[in-house]
């Protein structure tokens, strides 16, 4: 409950933050909302020697529409996303279901994506919407696609000296969307979660469907078999049920104290059906 001793610095700019990380060595860590990192430190599962707090770094805040996508500053708290269903759609929907209000008041989108927990909700959303993050490092900025960001359990392709500055979520105008998170208690991490976004052709058939899975593997996953099964179909309850049956194809979800592998695979199918019906306006 009490972390090991560490140093703490609050840089005033991105460059200073990167310098601090470099000078701090391999056990220096960025601190955003602290709601993933600090619990690990309190349990002494993480023992960084230096925390570089991003709270005074300018430019990491704000939610703006830029052309076809939303630019969300890395330090944007879940609470700032949670009520914006009208414009942020499934991003707001997923953010609103994270833990409880205290956690949402602190946790940030940048921290959540950098932490790369496959049981967390926003990584699945980024993968489903095919968004990107911008990472600033000593050699400048680069844009990383969601599919390239999440590598393994709590492992991303970010370099230790890179800082996520902003997140781009495609606006998905005209798409239907749904997010279904299955938990024992309201405040829990997803036992399984499913995000679905669907775009229809003029004739009502599915032009494009994207389905993302939370906590079904070491990273967030796409349910490609289910997506493919839907394309070209009318968005009916029957077609959704048929596609949802493929949601867990090819997955090897980790069993835990709440759910066996088989049960998680079953849940993925049930929740995919629900998320798609939500996206189709059938719920």
């Amino acid at each position: 409950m009490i972390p090991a001793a560490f140093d703490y610095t609050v840089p005033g700019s991105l460059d200073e933050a990167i310098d601090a990380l470099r000078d701090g060595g391999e056990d220096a860590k960025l601190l955003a909302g602290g709601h993933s990192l600090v619990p690990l430190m309190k349990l002494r599962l993480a023992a960084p020697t230096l925390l570089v707090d991003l709270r005074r770094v300018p430019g990491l805040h704000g939610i703006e529409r830029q052309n076809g996508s939303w630019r969300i500053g890395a330090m944007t708290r879940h609470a700032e996303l949670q009520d914006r269903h009208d414009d942020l759609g499934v991003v707001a929907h997923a953010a609103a279901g994270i833990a409880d209000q205290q956690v949402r008041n602190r946790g940030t989108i940048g921290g959540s994506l950098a932490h790369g927990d496959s049981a967390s909700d926003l990584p699945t959303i980024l993968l489903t919407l095919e968004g990107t993050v911008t990472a600033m490092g000593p050699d400048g900025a680069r844009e990383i696609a969601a599919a390239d960001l999440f590598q393994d359990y709590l492992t991303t392709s970010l370099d230790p000296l890179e800082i996520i500055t902003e997140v781009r979520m495609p606006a998905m105008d005209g798409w239907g969307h749904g997010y279904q998170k299955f938990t024992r208690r309201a405040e829990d991490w997803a036992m399984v979660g499913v995000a679905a976004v669907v775009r229809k052709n003029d004739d009502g058939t599915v032009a494009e469907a994207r389905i993302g899975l939370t906590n079904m593997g070491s990273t967030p996953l796409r349910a490609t078999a289910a997506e493919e099964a839907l394309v070209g179909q009318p968005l009916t309850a029957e077609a959704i049920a048929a596609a949802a049956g493929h949601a867990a194809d090819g997955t090897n979800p980790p069993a835990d104290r709440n759910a066996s592998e088989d049960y998680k695979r079953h849940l993925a199918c049930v929740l995919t059906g629900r998320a798609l019906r939500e996206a189709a306006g059938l719920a």
Partner: protein
Amino acid sequence: MTAIDDRAAAAPHRGQSLRRKEDPRLITGRASYTDDLNITGQLHAAIVRSPEAHAKIVSIDTSAALERDDVVAVYTGEDMADLLGPLPMAWVPPGVDVQNPPHWPLARGTVKHVGDPVAIVLSEDRGAAIDGAEDVFVEYEPLPVCMDIETALEDGAALTHPEIGTNKCHEWSLGGGDIEAGFAAADVIVERRVVNHRVSGAPIEPRGVLADYRAGALTLHTSTQVPHFVRLFAALILGINEEKIRVIAPEVGGGFGAKLQVTGEEMLCSWASRKSGRPVKWIETRSEHMAVCHHGRDQVATVRLGATKDGRLTAIHSKILADMGAYLMLLTPAVPSLGAFVMSGVYDIPAVQTDITTVFTNKCATDAIRGAGRPEATHMIEVCMDQLADELGMDRLELRRKNFIPKDDFPHETALGIVYDSGNYEGALDLLMEKLDLPALEAEKAELAAKGIRRGIGYSTYTEICGLAPSRITGPEGFGLQTGLWESAIVRVTVTGNVVVYTGTSPHGQGHETTMAQIVADKLGVDPAQVEIMHGDTGTGAMGLGTYGSRTTAVGTEAVARAADKVVEKARSIVSHLLEAAPEDIEVHDGKFSVKGSPDKGLALAEVSGVAHVQPEKMPQGMEPGLEETSFYDPENFVFPFGAHACIVDVEEDTGKVKVVRYVAIDDCGPAINPMVIDGQVHGGIAQAIGQALYEHVMYDDTGQLVTGTFVDYALPTAAELPSFETDRTETPSPVNSLGVKGIGEAGTIAATPAVVNAVIDALKPLGVTYMNMPLGPEAVWTAIQEAGQ
């Protein structure tokens, strides 16, 4: 029953939902818990705990820790050779052999469960103490672990305590009536394996200790429910005279039985304070609490319940295997037997038999957690009543009503020889059905089923045994507790006519500062705001045995009431002397001790007290000055609250997720002192039971590692998971005490698990599910649906 009429006419405060006197300080953050206390010069303790479930300690290397500048001392079990004895276990049932391996504050030679303490590190700073603990290197030689009570007694099972030669701790039976004849007379017998899994008390304030030994005396602040027990055992274990020990329970943030204990940490910090010459403070972390503060339940029972084909119960037999964990703590082996006393529930059953076998495993000890044995027993009979009704093809409530002990049959002696004090089970069930609106609930069923949601309704009609006391039954020659269980109280009227009450009980959030004040205020004709209740300090005021077993009102408040009665008597003598009236003509009326029939002729308590303290020469000849009385009270019998609960659940067919949509509870704890306080106790109790039925489960893996070490893994339900409970009461006075009251602190927890489980089974019956054990997490329910469908 004339006494009841007197009570009905009692003064105005009793029966009202007065706001709790303790709440302003609690809800504005002005209360002082153990962690809020600091003593100049104190050291912080961190405890090095075993990561192994069972191992020999090969060596302990403390040198690296001691080399740290900020570490003051490190002690291990070897350093504590001067203890006069191991930690206490207070149950010695006459004629029963109970294996009780020594349990030391720091392990000696072997560790027996994950979290077993091995060393204590003292530092000026709490963080540094924890750092130091990480620098204590212990070499363990792992030993085979015993983790499953159902196989622990088989040949070749790994032994928790090899020197005992078996994992069996003890056997104990309680029976009455002819059990064989009972089952012979049955046309139908149901037999079920009933699991009451392991739970944690999980008070929001974990434990904490601040021990200060100086100049030959020990002051021990500890987050406890039982300061007097702690003092007694500290004296015996540490070899300090009792009068030199003062145990203080500051504000205690919940107990639920988890703090009905004499703990290793209390003894360890006290010892370390004496050894180091500095005050020693230890605050338990949540992870520590989950791993090492005693757990509750953990029983597997085989229950047989027999009835004639027209639904008359003939016999119940429960064979209980109970998991003790690795050591016996204060009451560990006694807990299952508390359930045996009420194994026949609210029913008139001619033959009752309970056979208990207790078993050691490499887990944290179990002990009393809210309800202690009675939730388990209630679960057994109430779940089996539904099973029996199904087997008989009879309505569940009809079966219950048919076998209720009738209301004109109280006091009722059960087949076990236990005397239930009072009851009206029909009355409680009638009121429940009135509140429930069954037709409306049933009507929604079909509509929900079409959406894949199965609605179920479950009932539990219960009684429980509480108000622990009476010493005559619970004591050394009876049940075998090595203590009396009386209570005492001092009621002191101050010079200005206010009242200070000292109670030997140790309330920790229940609301007794309010309810006791209501009783005293009515008796003395003052306002409850003028009555201060002092508790939780062995150095001031009354002796007593603490707060647990739903005893503080039925035993502790009765002692307070009796002391107040004595004060009233003295005040009447004084007033009669001053007003020249007969003492029997003086009554407390409108805040005054006045002469019957002439209410304006009288003295307020402040005036009486003024005479008693300032002008004692005006008192009757020979009367001692002052206005203060003491009472010791040991009841003749337990009290038996009862009630009828209903739970309505909706179950998602495709995921197995259970949602409690309504919960209706009728409870009877005698005439209410404060209905709101009763509601609070019932709400909390039900929440805790729904927690057990659906969410909470202390889990270990096969190697003895604790899987549920945090509140992320140990799923306490929150308000979001629970409906708004609907509560009401019937009021059937107990003849046992003058207040007519029964305990209510545990009733909700005792009653509610079977209501939830019966509701889930009821919901799933159309799908072919006939029986399930707790906890009913979504996968378990979904799996049951799948298996039934095959």
